[in-house]
């Protein structure tokens, strides 16, 4: 940290002051990294249901997911960990998340070599990780494929995930029902990253649902990037472009933080906003009922807890209780429930930060 300024010999005092300032700034900064809060983390803690709860054969489950770089993915990891902890017969081997395909392949291969009993994989990129899924299946390790689907059905024993098309569909139906008595109703859409297939599916579902309501027209659509910053910028643009509209669907609650901020800054209300994914903050706002935000469509992060249940059932050779079959299903698509003020209390524990 020594500052060498050869031309000015009289700077020792300046250096001293500068050094002291640097040290105190450093001390201040290190004191500011904490994010501890007494409030609960808000991950799902509901009773283990569905799969047989009685302890059985010991199962080691390997879990590999992408880097938890935003709220939803973070909740995926938390839900998986907490669910595994509830079973005394389950040992969870969780890898450090990675968005790099090569790195994730390496991590999964390590889990295969460790001979875990079942693998739960949320691939960073489903298509790119198909080969390693196949490899695990060939090695006799059943794979539960979480959310982002592999390219081949041979690469997994069971797929469980969310329904992007259904998300759009349910958002569209909810908005449609709210506006069905309004003539020439206008709707705008704040979409997610446009080059992702899931964004196109959500939009498709939304458009298909709106077709049932001839009085409603979608007048605007902008694609943000799932970030607060882009949400604010794109929403500000939408608000400027459309001086009046009746409803807004925002694909993602993370970018929704920015969108709400833009709405607040523009001083606009008189429309209804529906979110997507189901963050804790959005659910709190819905519950408070004092903003334009009236509902959100879930993309449940509890799916990783379900994946642990399914993996455990696979490892113990059981089926899903409540179903007649002896084995777990090959594919499970989760329902994108609409959370409103009426049912928000039921969903609050699943809201993620």
């Amino acid at each position, binding site marked *: *940290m020594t500052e*060498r*300024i*050869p*031309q*000015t010999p009289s700077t020792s005092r300046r250096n001293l002051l500068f050094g002291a300032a*640097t040290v105190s*700034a*450093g001390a*201040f*900064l290190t*004191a*500011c*990294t*904490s*994010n*501890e*809060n007494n409030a609960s983390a808000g991950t799902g803690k509901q009773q283990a249901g569905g799969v047989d709860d009685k302890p059985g054969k010991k199962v080691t489950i390997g879990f590999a997911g992408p*880097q*938890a*770089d*935003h*709220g939803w*993915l*973070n909740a995926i990891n938390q839900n998986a960990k907490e669910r595994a902890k509830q079973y005394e017969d389950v040992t969870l081997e969780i890898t450090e998340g990675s968005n790099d395909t090569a790195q994730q392949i390496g991590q999964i291969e390590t889990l295969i070599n460790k001979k875990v009993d079942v693998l739960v994989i949320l691939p960073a990129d489903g298509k790119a990780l198909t080969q390693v899924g196949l490899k695990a299946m060939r090695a006799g390790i059943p794979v539960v494929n979480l959310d982002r689907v592999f390219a081949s059905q041979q690469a997994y024993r069971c797929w469980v995930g969310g329904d992007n098309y259904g998300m759009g569909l349910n958002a569209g139906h909810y908005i449609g029902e709210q506006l069905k008595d309004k003539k020439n109703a206008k709707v705008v859409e704040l979409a997610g990253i*446009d*080059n992702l297939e899931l964004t196109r599916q959500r939009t498709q579902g939304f458009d298909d649902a709106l077709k049932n309501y001839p009085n409603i027209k979608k*007048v*605007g*659509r*902008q*694609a943000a*990037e*799932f*970030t*607060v*910053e*882009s*949400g*604010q*910028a*794109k929403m*500000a*643009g*939408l608000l*400027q*472009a459309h*001086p009046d509209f009746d409803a807004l669907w925002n694909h993602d609650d*993370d970018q929704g*933080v*920015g969108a709400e*901020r833009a709405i*607040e*800054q*523009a*001083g606009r209300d008189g429309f209804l906003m529906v979110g997507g994914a189901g*963050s804790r*903050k959005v659910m709190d706002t819905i519950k408070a009922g004092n903003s334009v935000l009236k509902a959100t469509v879930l993309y449940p992060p509890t799916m990783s807890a379900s994946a642990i249940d399914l993996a455990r059932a696979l490892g113990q050779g059981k089926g899903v209780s409540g179903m007649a079959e002896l084995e777990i299903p090959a594919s499970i698509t989760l329902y994108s429930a609409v959370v409103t003020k009426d049912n928000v209390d039921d969903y609050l524990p699943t809201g993620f*930060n």
Partner: protein
Amino acid sequence: MNTSEGHTLPAEAGSAPPGPAGPVAKDAGRAGARRRPDVHNLSLLGVLAALVLVGVLTKPEQFLSVQNLQLVLTQASVIGIVTVGVTFVIIGGGIDLSVGAMVALATVWATTLATQQFGLGGILLCALCVGLGCGLVNGLLVSFGGLVPFIATLAMLASARGLALQISEGRTQVVSVEPVLALGRRDAYLLGIPPIVLVFAVVTVVGWLVLNRTTFGRRTVAVGGNPEAARLAGIDVRRQRLLLYLLSGLCCGIAAFLLIVLTGSGQNTNGNLYELDAIAAAIIGGTLLSGGRGTITGSVLGVLVFTLITNLFALNNLETAVQQIAKGAIIVAAVLVQKGRTS
């Protein structure tokens, strides 16, 4: 602090007009170096005028409103301030790829629950300190560690993003400090000008003055134009470079604070690709990527061109993909114009 050392550069003292010092810019030709960016700014103004015309023709009532002007300027402010810092670094012969990551880290660090306890002052101080701290590390690595700027700032990009992710754990950190939130609301506008835009204006004016009216500015141009000649002329090149990276870090800190005000939150994905946007704006503004030439006015015009494109596309409800194509085309066109004038 710079003027006190003016005696080290007798050549500069005589050259009142802003521009590279005599012995330094032999190759460029002083008069030319001064005049060219101005011509360039004129052509950029032409582009801006054309964009405004498009706006007026397509969506007159929404485009030509006070709100829209406020919106465009607000959206330009954060990236604009970052671009001012980057322009200094590029003129000084360096590059700063870490600006986006520094903004992200500063927004995250300044919005942790621990920092929020200190209120507005704490958040502001924290954002500035993080920016300056990262800038200091960049500067030390480049000036005294002997690292190529591209590599040093690339390393900072990676580690600052990583640290931001580690602190936030991927969560969106929502700000609940009321004075900070109030700054972004309509009631806080001074004579119709959002405070965020005021800060941008101040940074731009100060940046212009520093570059054109101070020894520091002239040294920056000298160091970027020909470091060896600058060294022979008595400029402490390493110190100058260190200060430039500090300046860029400071700009990122300010931008981060404004971003917190604008979005009411801190997130590790903030400032995504700012480095490329800032460099692109500086380049179409006439800043030479190899250093030694550039203007603050040009860079700010460059930022406004990009923001106006985004605005026009939103107003006309066009897709993001088309917008990116337009952006790419404008960068190429601007550089071609620049080349045409230089040769």
